[in-house]
């Protein structure tokens, strides 16, 4: 199988990328890891006449950490995040091993996953739980928006044809210690989620929830942030009763579709169970750090 013919560019600088995007507009597609785009092009579900391979933009494949937060270049591969050390951002290391399979993770990038905007994608859920923003650049300048503003619909984002996603910005936890879980139900290794639930909770030394984020994969037409549920959690002590309440609430925030991966009813139930299970594991982990 092979894609339709296209013109191929491999620019070395962002300026060149801006120029090509301006010149070719929506005839062009950016090629990052190629793990979603190339399969679609081979099946002729996508047929761009120009490919702009951004693999040579070395400064988009690194991270910088400051007191304010972590900035992740769009070209960071899933594998690099899986094997990295993210002490203040444990959800990154929790999530990465669940994405696709090891071979796909060696190529696929965080920016590509977000730009592709599959509602079942794992980074969507995890980065919503971390309240992340994205940086989007074009010749005109840089704009920054929250991930929630970025995800517009199924496979649709706020990116304009002349723009490139360059960075993901994750705010640093403010108080307490961060605990995180990513729970994913998959039919087989490497498949997209039937349901995925990402949880990040900052707990103070007395067990109060200083901050919380819950993101859900495959529970809506876009990756979903469970705001009502996090507002139930914040400021409270993490207890089994609160966990029960939160899990009932979270599954009601989703509006999943029945499809070949499962019925809407099943997905609702699994989301509830995952929120309960994830928060319970976090509570146990927090308790063990207290007694240690």
């Amino acid at each position, binding site marked *: *199988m*092979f*894609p*339709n*013919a*296209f*013109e*191929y560019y*491999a620019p070395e600088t962002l300026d060149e990328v801006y120029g090509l995007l301006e010149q070719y507009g929506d005839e062009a597609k950016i*090629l990052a890891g*190629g*793990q979603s785009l*190339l*399969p679609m*092009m*081979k*099946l002729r579900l996508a047929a761009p006449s120009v*490919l702009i*391979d951004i*693999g040579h933009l070395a400064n988009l494949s690194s991270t910088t950490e400051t007191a304010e937060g972590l900035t992740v270049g769009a070209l960071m591969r899933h*594998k690099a995040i899986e094997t990295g050390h993210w002490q203040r951002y444990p959800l990154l290391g929790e999530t990465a*091993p669940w994405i*696709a*399979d*090891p*071979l*796909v993770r*060696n*190529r696929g990038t965080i920016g590509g996953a977000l730009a592709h905007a599959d509602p079942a994608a794992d980074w969507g859920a995890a980065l919503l739980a971390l309240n992340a923003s994205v940086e989007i650049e074009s010749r005109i300048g840089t704009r920054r928006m929250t991930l929630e503003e970025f995800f517009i619909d199924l496979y649709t984002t706020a990116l304009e044809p002349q723009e490139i996603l360059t960075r993901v910005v994750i705010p640093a936890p403010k108080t307490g210690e961060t605990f995180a879980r990513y729970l994913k139900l998959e039919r087989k*290794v*490497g498949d997209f989620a039937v349901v995925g639930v990402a949880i990040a909770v900052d707990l103070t030394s007395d067990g109060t929830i200083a901050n919380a984020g819950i993101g859900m994969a495959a529970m809506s037409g876009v990756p979903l942030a469970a705001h009502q549920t996090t507002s139930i959690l914040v400021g409270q002590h993490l207890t089994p009763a609160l966990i029960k309440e939160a899990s009932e609430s979270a599954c009601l925030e989703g509006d999943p579709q029945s499809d070949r991966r499962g019925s809407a009813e099943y997905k609702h139930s699994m989301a509830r169970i995952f929120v309960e299970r994830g928060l319970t594991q976090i509570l146990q982990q927090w308790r063990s750090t207290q007694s240690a």
Partner: protein
Amino acid sequence: MESRKDDTHRMVTVTINGEMRQGLAEPRKLLAYFIRETLGLTGTHVGCDTTSCGACTVLLDNEPVKSCTVLAVQADHHQIDTVEGLETDNVLHPLQQAFWDNHGLQCGFCTPGMLMTSVALLQKNPHPSESEIRHAISGNLCRCTGYVNIVKAITDASHKMQQEPAEV
């Protein structure tokens, strides 16, 4: 071998199994086909051609990737290793020998990809546990063996390579 050179073709230079090779490729040519058709190395198999099976696994700069889902032009000036590079002077690589000894293959279709993933695993982690092995090969499908003997073979190779530090 392709001999046409025009606007639609590009020269792609790779170091494959330690040897510098060049060939012309249309940008839409996938690396798996460049390796098989242009460079004539047919050890790399194409199974599903839809990024699902891992039969096409090669090492790109020492990382195992699905070569049916990488463009040949993306590999320009990079290093590639395929199953043909494993054997030296008619002696099988310890992993190849271990697959043979442990019946780690039946039809053999998945084997080149399985071997390349295993080579990369043992380079990074010379003593993997069973679960680490299973995790590492989870992108490589085998329709014949049920994986048990593949896991055994990789474990066996890791022990043997420890005894006689080999040139991996």
